[in-house]
């Protein structure tokens, strides 16, 4: 798994390439929490290159959303492929973290929510 971070306004986009599983989730968690700790309150997880996510990865997403909440922070997910989307829908993650088709829509969505 590889994460490339790009910045926008008060936010960060994490492009996740590869698989978030029980082995790689701790590394994904470190990168995500480091960004939140350094003050980013708008986080977009861009899943265009994400091939797979298991419950270990879902738990990291939930934890990050929880951590952002007291700071009026927001998270969004975009560009998930059909398999990853199916998993996200199975746990109804959208009730906590909105899912968007494109990165632009996610940025717009976070602006509107915030």
């Amino acid at each position, binding site marked *: 798994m590889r994460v490339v971070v790009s910045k926008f306004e008060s936010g960060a986009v994490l492009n996740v390439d590869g*698989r978030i*599983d*029980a*082995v790689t989730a701790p590394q994904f968690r470190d990168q995500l929490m480091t960004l939140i700790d350094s003050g980013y309150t708008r986080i977009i997880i861009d899943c265009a290159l994400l091939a*797979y996510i*298991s*419950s*270990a990865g*879902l*738990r990291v997403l*939930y934890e990050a*959303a*929880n951590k952002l909440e007291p700071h009026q922070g927001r998270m969004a997910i975009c560009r998930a492929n*059909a*398999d990853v989307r*199916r*998993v996200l829908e*199975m*746990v*109804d993650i959208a*009730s*906590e973290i909105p899912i968007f088709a494109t990165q632009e829509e996610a940025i717009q969505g976070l602006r509107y929510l915030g």
Partner: protein
Amino acid sequence: MRLRKKRYRVCGISDDEIMAEELTIELKNALSEVEALQRMLAEFGERHHLLENIVFDVTLALEEVLTNIISYAFDDDGEHKIRIRLSLDEGVLTAEVEDDGRPFDPLRVPAPELSSPLEKRPVGGLGIHLIRGLMDELEYRRVRGRNVLRLKKKAKVS
């Protein structure tokens, strides 16, 4: 990881279709084995021309089963073997997972309250919820001091 293969030949069908293959993998109780499991399923899927989303679903369900066993089944820190047997028969992929941990029926774990606030949700339960959603049939047995979980998935071929 150790591999054992068995192939059964049936007469009268073309060479590709006659293989009803059974594949047994032995994994240790270490999270790093998840990668070996993924490779194994990818190869199994390719060999049997399984659709990618079927391979995805079975890989995910088995990762959840494996990490549950590694996290909760053993009272000691010693090494344990977890055996996974894969077979494909009449369009149904069956995975049987066997461990020598304490008796644990994952099917009796209550479903997580997905609608309740995040902080009130139990940390566990997500994996089992996924396993239930991904597979068509689940069956747990305790056999001679071992947990045996059988998972079935209708496997369309590409």
